[in-house]
């Protein structure tokens, strides 16, 4: 018994000794309600690090995923855990913008190196400080909104679009960008409806019926998969002649939307949503993307064999590309072992990447720079207008890009 006790102590001591050689990559995301998007992000991170053998600058890379379930307070608590971890180098966000927006000051003041592969809220990366700790490689509402509005007005021939936005800072940021875009189409005062989280079926039916009966001929939706699926279901429940097209933000693709609004239901509605332009389902795949997918297949242990198997693929794509940028930054500056110093070093390195980085969306050249609220508001945005496309679901729930935003 005495020897067994000593052995147990020894086993416990080993990881303690290896602690110095670890960097821990965190994710603070909604692992409950929008788990598909969160898991896609995790896979993107893991595949990118897998390419370098999960080791960088002499540090083994470990991953720790925390669930904020969309709650800003819990997200802040998760950040607390990250910040207190002496090996926690960077923290990825998930699908929701509100935690990032609400806690933006805290994040920046706490010097928490935050990488955003999904959340689209405009203010997220626009902390009014040169020392900006949040880097995004995702759709940015400030630019996604106009893309969606243009698509609705031009491609879907909307004349009376209805802005259906969740009552959150994310919805708020979209309201601004979309209102601005609509004004360009001659609609100064668009119809707007806000909805809260936890919207239920009955509320959604009332909401949709009011919109349709109010004369709107299309719905521009900003919401996540949970509420998005309830709203879309309410539309599906309407008579065919009353159904109007939905042009959605990409939040609906972050969860099990495709399982609730199945392909069969989707046949009878006109649903399109914004995505970044790369997709594994695109007809043309490069060698690079093929290799990345091969690696994905390899580490997913058989759960993913085709492009359609990868749900919320945009999360994977953005996370992969963002991780590639992180790796490049680490490689560029190295790690000191002082986590606070390393976080700042990497932050600075991200703003000063010297070499182009090959990603799935594109090859990134100086994707980030030092933020300036007046002169460089997109300094921490890796994607641009040209990187946004509209997409739709395929029969097998895969996502097909249908239009280049640049068109």
């Amino acid at each position, binding site marked *: 018994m005495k020897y067994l006790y000593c052995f147990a102590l020894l086993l416990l001591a080993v990881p303690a000794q290896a602690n110095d050689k670890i960097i821990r990559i965190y994710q603070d995301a909604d692992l409950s309600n929008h788990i598909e998007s969160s898991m896609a992000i995790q896979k993107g991170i893991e595949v990118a690090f897998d390419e370098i053998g999960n080791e960088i600058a002499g540090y083994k890379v470990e991953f720790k995923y925390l669930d904020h379930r*969309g709650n*800003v307070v819990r997200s802040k608590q998760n950040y607390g855990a990250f910040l207190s971890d002496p090996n926690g180098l960077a923290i990825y966000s998930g699908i929701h913008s509100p935690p990032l927006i609400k806690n933006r000051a805290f994040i920046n003041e706490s010097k928490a190196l935050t990488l955003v592969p999904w959340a689209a809220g405009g203010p997220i990366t626009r902390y009014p400080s040169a020392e900006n700790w949040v880097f995004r490689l995702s759709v940015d509402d400030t630019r996604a909104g106009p893309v969606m509005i243009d698509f609705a007005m031009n491609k879907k021939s909307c004349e009376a679009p209805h802005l259906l936005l*969740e*009552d*959150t800072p994310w919805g708020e940021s979209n309201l601004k960008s979309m209102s601005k875009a609509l004004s360009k189409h001659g609609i100064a005062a668009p119809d707007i409806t806000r909805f*809260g989280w936890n919207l239920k079926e009955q509320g959604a039916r009332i909401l949709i019926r009011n919109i349709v009966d109010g004369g709107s001929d299309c719905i521009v939706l900003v919401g996540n998969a949970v509420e998005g699926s309830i709203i879309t279901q309410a539309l599906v429940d309407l008579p065919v002649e009353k159904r109007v097209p939905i042009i959605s933000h990409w939040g609906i693709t972050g969860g099990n939307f495709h399982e609730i609004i199945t392909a069969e239901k989707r046949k009878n509605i006109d649903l399109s949503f914004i995505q970044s332009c790369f997709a594994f389902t695109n007809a043309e795949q490069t060698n690079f993307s093929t290799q990345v997918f091969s690696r994905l297949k390899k580490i997913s242990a058989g759960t993913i064999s085709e492009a359609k198997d990868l749900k919320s693929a945009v999360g994977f794509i953005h996370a992969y590309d963002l991780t590639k940028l992180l790796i490049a930054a680490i490689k560029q500056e190295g790690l000191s072992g002082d986590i606070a110093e390393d976080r700042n070093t990497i932050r600075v390195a991200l703003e000063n990447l010297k070499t182009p980085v090959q990603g799935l969306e594109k090859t990134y050249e100086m994707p980030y720079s030092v933020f300036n609220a007046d002169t460089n508001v997109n300094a921490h945005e890796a994607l641009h207008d040209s990187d946004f496309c509209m997409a739709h679901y395929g029969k097998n729930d895969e996502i097909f890009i249908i239009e280049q935003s640049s068109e």
Partner: protein
Amino acid sequence: MTIKTSIINEQNKPVLQVLVLFLIGFFLIMTFLAAFVLIPRINQSFEKQHLQDSEITLEIEVELFKRFVENYRTILQDLANFPVITSTVLLSQPDNSDFIDLVDNFSISGEKSRLVLQDIAGEVLYQTAQNIKGDFSTNAPWIKPLLNGDESFNFQLLEQEGEVFRFVLSVPVMYHNNIEGILSAEITTPLSDIFSPKTIEEGSAFTLRQGDVTVKMDVSSMALPRKIKTYLAVKDIELTYINDYTKVIVEQNKLRNMTLIVLFFGLAISFIFFSVLAYRMLMGTEEDKTFHKNIFSKSYTIPLIIGSIGIAASILAYFLIQNLKHQQIQQETLAANNLVIQSIEETLISKASTLNSLKAFFDASQHIDRIEFKTFTAPFFKEHQDIHALEWVPKIEGLQREHYEKLARADGLAQYTIKEANAQGILEPAPLRDVYFPVYYAEPQDVNKKILGLDSPFNLRRVEAIKQATDTGDITAAGTFPLLQDEQKKTGMLIFNPVYSDALNYIDAQQRQEHLKGFVLLVLRIDDVINPTLNKQERETLISLEDVTAPQKPELIFGSYDQNSINVDLISDNTIEIFGRRWKIKAFPSSNPYQNITSFLPWLVLVGGIIFTVFITYTFIQLIRRREIIEGIVNARTKEVKELSSAMENAVEGVSQIDYKGSYIYLNESYASTCGYNSKQLVGENWRKTIHPDDHEMMHDAYMAMFDHGQVTVEPRGVRKNGTIFYKRITMIARYANNGEFIGHHCFMSDISDRKKAEEEILNSNSELEEFAYRTSHDLRSPIISSVRLLSMAEQAIHDKNNDIALMSLSHAQTSLQKLDTLIKDILALTETKNKEEEPKNINIDVLVNDALEKMEHMEGFERLDIQTEFQFKDNFCAKETRFNMILENLISNAIKYQDPKKENPYIKISTKNTNGVFIFEVKDNGLGVPKDQQDKLFTMFKRFHPKVAFGSGLGLYLMKKSADVLNGEISFHDHGDGSTFRLSIPL
């Protein structure tokens, strides 16, 4: 009843009475069973049932309370599920106008809601009013379990303000089955809204307790509140159902009194019934008496029943009245007890607010100096005169001891040092320790000066209390012990309230220990708590206070009582849980109030009832005894009469009663049968019918003589019904009524025929004897004298030598002597006939007649007789042969001897026949016959009708008559004109 009775015929009356008796008996048995078996059982069941009912009520009320809470929880949960609420907590963004509109205008049960929204960190995001009560701090112990999903809601009971119930209900804000925040509502509602109105209307009350907070309804009106507690499965809520046990006692008493009343009236009715029964038994008809005797085999059964029932009824009445009095006293005593208990409870509970105020004082200030402490505590002593001391006991680390001691000395306490009591109770400086809990401030200082500096850990109980108070944060009492600062060393109680370094609530004991600043300490002298309360009471009530925190080791704190000397039903007790301890308070009267019952009414009823019962019973017993005496006399008389009657009935002599008219009114069988009647035939007949007419005059003379002498005896001849005559001896005794009036006479009669016959026989015998003597002397002397003369003549002749004359004389003398010989033989035969005893046997007539004829062949003239025989009956004739043969031979020889020589055809006819059961033997001849004038003397002695024809003794026919008598027969003579017929008749 009347109608029924009227239609019941007399035959059914006994059945009805038996039925009534049965029913009364049944009723009494059942009532006694009810009183002594069923009622105690029912009371036990009643109490058990009451407990069960209370438990059920409690369960129902618990369920109602749960539903009440659940109802509010549902309302609140529905509100929490509003998307805007969810968004607000998820986004931590309470400035949303939709949200604010919603929560600010939301109402719960018609009242504007008072809501608090907290995020998952416990931070208050929004509250609809600033003064919402309840603990909403981030460290509130209820938050974590709620956020973790361990609890589905939280219930915080708030301090009571009047008869309203206030609580805070908290529910999680859910988003897709995940908890994202907490929504709470402070709810105020009347207590009566929670619990069943009916239960409250019936005088029940409820208490809700959660931790230190207790909400209760007014129970002051309850004389004997009885509590049943239950803990709700969640929220550590204790719900107590309180009902007035007096009601149970009242119900039990009602039941008991009702039973006693029923029993009493049952007994009273039975008493009356049996009294009437006894009266009827004593005074009623013979039929009633017989009936009652049949039912009650013993005469004294009914009086005994009456006595038993009457005494039982009296005792019952006594108990009934006594019970009512006891009941009243019991209720008054219990009410007084309860008042005392409640008062003591409230006194103790009120100390908590004192301690909390003092604690709040320390919480609100970084430092409180000695003057401030004195100033702050001064009002408490005015308000609570039972507080012996209020103290501040800081936690002092070992290294700070000297610093604190210096500060205290600087405050003017020159001798201040941290000290402890040694084994002898003498205070001495405390040894070095890591931490001290000395009395630093103590007010009033003048009486508590001695204990300033006293380190609390010197006593194990204090150590335990300090630890418990520190770890729980609750007010904790340190049991009881003699107070060092008290001259009289009276028992005191120390109550600690911990003060921490800040006002936050700490989750665990370790945090509390780390942040402990010290204690505010309240010292109570038990006497001071209890005695003022007792002194206020009108009744002299005693108290025992027992610490039962450790149930297996209860400790008496105050008072004592001898359980055996106090009626259990006069003791009230209640166990209170306060200051971390359990105290059982018992209140009881100082003396047995039952002993002070001075009412004479029950005794009056008891004694009066018993006296009345004894009187009635005694009366009946006396009546019965008198009746028994009379009955005894009557029975004796009856027995005598019966015996006399029986004797008379069975007497040989006849007895009769003859009225003054001479008619038989009674006669016994002997009398009647003697006269040839049965008794009934002669009743009403005149006496003359039974008296020979020739003797009527004799009877008349005797009757008259009876008037003169009261009685007379006479021997008249009686006449039987069949006309036959008999002699009877009659004794007549005159009968007179009580008024002296002659009403007739008794007539005692005996048949004296035999005596008369004997007398006649004696007379006859005397005559015969006289005649026999005369005849014998004459007939015997005559031949002797004749022979003597003849012999003298013969002698003379011989002398004279006259041989002829001599011979002739001798021959005559010989003849005379032969006659004498014959005479002597007949006399001998007569004697023999009288004395000879012989058994009857079958007689062959043929043989006897032939033998007789053969013997008589040589008699003179035999050969000329025509002897004829005709035996029609000759078989199966049974008689004494010698007698019969003597008669037969005499009759035949007489017929031969006295044949008529003149007749040419003399004959003798010998015949036998059976005529109507009578054997007839006849000898008929045509001989000389019997002269008519002598035929009536035919069968007398010495009668010779033809002496010249043949010599005879004259005894032959007499002898035949005697022999015929011996044969129970009769011999008779018939003169048929040509001779004689002798007939012997013997009944077969």
